[in-house]
């Protein structure tokens, strides 16, 4: 069953008449890695905000496990159901890496036997050691911050992961590590991973590639390596 479905989704910015996109239909399933590609200004980030419940579509419906996002408590949806990885990381800069993860777990209401141990293990799984975990985010490199961002997105064990240009600000080596993590999340940990990107290095690993064209339509473009 699809984790997320788009049913004739359309979106027009406030105070404008021209839609950014319209009539989008797609289904996203667990265990698969999806890439949404498109030129700058095609509306990729707007689509991601709709999927993340940060905004509401002006036409059609986005359904999470069959439930319209409009009907859901979208704060709760973001806190518990999905994980979002941002291109610019969007971490709390005056907190340590560990505190960012712990705060996310607290907001989501996640309770493990020992939340701190769980958070440290999670950070370790994305390549952040204990010493780095205790450092303020502001003092971390871009790659480290993106790993913390991924750990934060996973902290409440969501079924759906949304990533906006996750390797956009990273060097080649770190980019490869991040791609490996995302592929692992989809194929090994059975998460539904949707990545908005224009990086061919990521699309190569995608199970499905969708393109947002200039006319504001979502077009299936094949799978990684084919497209």
């Amino acid at each position: 069953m699809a984790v997320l479905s788009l049913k004739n989704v359309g979106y027009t910015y406030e105070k404008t008449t021209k839609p950014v996109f319209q009539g989008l239909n797609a289904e996203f399933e667990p265990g698969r890695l999806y890439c949404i590609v498109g030129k700058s200004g095609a509306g990729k980030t707007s689509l991601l905000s709709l999927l993340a419940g940060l905004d509401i579509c002006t036409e059609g419906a986005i359904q999470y496990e069959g439930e319209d996002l409009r009907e859901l408590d979208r704060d709760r949806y973001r806190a518990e159901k999905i994980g979002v990885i941002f291109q610019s990381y969007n971490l709390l800069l005056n907190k340590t890496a560990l505190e960012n993860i712990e705060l996310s777990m607290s907001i989501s209401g996640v309770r493990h036997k020992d939340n701190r141990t769980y958070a440290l293990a999670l950070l370790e799984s994305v390549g952040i050691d204990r010493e780095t975990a205790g450092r303020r985010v502001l003092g971390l490199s871009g790659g480290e911050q993106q790993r913390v961002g991924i750990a934060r997105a996973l902290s409440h064990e969501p079924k759906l992961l949304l990533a906006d240009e996750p390797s956009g600000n990273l060097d080649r080596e770190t980019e490869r590590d991040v791609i490996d993590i995302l592929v692992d999340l989809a194929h090994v940990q059975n998460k539904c991973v949707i990545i908005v990107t224009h990086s061919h290095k990521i699309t190569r690993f995608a199970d499905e590639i969708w393109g947002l064209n200039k006319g504001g339509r979502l077009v299936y473009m094949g799978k990684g390596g084919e497209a």
Partner: protein
Amino acid sequence: MYILKNAFQNLYRNAGRNLLAAGIFLVIITMSCVALVVYNDADNIAKQYKDRLSTEVLLDVDERKVGEASEDDETFRRPELADELIRKMAASKYLKKAMYYVQMEAVADDLKYTRPIDYEDMEMQRAGEDRVKTRAPQYYLNGFEDVSQAEPFQSGEAKLAEGGRFPKEDNECLISDTLAELNNLKPGDTFQTKSIYHTDKQGEPLEEMTLKVSGIYHREYSEGEMDRDDEIFTSYKLLIDPRYTYEPVFYTKFFLKDPKDLDAFAREAYDAGLSEYYSLSTDTVAYDTFVKPIEQMCVISIIFLWVVLALGAAVLIILSALVVRERKYEIGVLRSMGMKKSKVAVQLVLESALIMTVCLILGIALGSLLAQPVTDMLLADQMSQAMAGPSLAGSMGGASFGGLATDNNPITHINAALSLTTITELTGIALILTAIAGAVSAVCAMKYEPMRILRQRD
């Protein structure tokens, strides 16, 4: 719980920003504390004085009327107050309290007196009366219906020594410890005394009284105060007895239930037989002299408080809005993580509340230290203005004859102490300021949509 933890973390991780807010809070609370301490303490004193000065009735001789009458008739003499009239006035429904006593100037040839006075018999003639022989007084006999209710014993200024008791019989009395020591008198001893007048108004000789000492009192005097150890406290009835007294001199202290009742009380007194040569008034001159400056202090402190609060609130509103603007990225991140708007608002309010709690404690401590010098300065300023005015001389000269002399001294010190009321009011102010700062932060934070903030950041 995590919101509180997060709020604490934010406080010390953003020390600069929070110290600025704390500084503003501290200044507001300290200034408010000073203003409130000055206001509350000055207001209490003003109320006490107001209560006393505006309700205490002064029974005075109307010198103007007496002067006019004397000009018309050389033999004119104003009627004296009578015991019956005093009792009627004291029983008035308009009074909440009435104190009165009768005084006799006396001599006692067998006693050594406390203050050496060179006296000899002399003759005196008062208007409209025959010449009478009289002597300088050695003692003052004060007659009370119940000596224990006399002001020195009520105020604690005078205390009964062990082994004695207050007079029960008409001929019993209390003497000072000085007088007792000088004459080796103890409870149970008797002595003879008599009025300074040799005869009554009809020329009949006045009798000597035999007083029995029922107790000895000790009186404390403040520095520079003249001792009054020549006062002997005895019964009222004895001193109005015509066998012993030439003419009783009454002293009264009447307190109205309501200052507005003065006219009604006066009407009642004149109807009861009070001569038109007496006037009844409240001490408006002393009121203006003593209470007005204190009231002015209250006005100054309350205006100061409002100005501080208004300016403080305005600065806090601006600061809160600026702080939220500066923190909008953080708010956007929290919202994108799924934190509800209400919880973001609670966190902002909590941060303000934590800063305010610390500032409240520090501000109260600092304010209470500053309050005394500020009070002294304001009081000195106000009193010097009041004393420079023409009213005080009138007040001091206006001591009543036939009534108790005005015993109001200028207020030279107000103890600027922190009261529970002040602490409660400051806590209220702190809560309001926290609510203002928190509400502004919360309202500003609500405006920001997370996606818009994060997009701007990107």
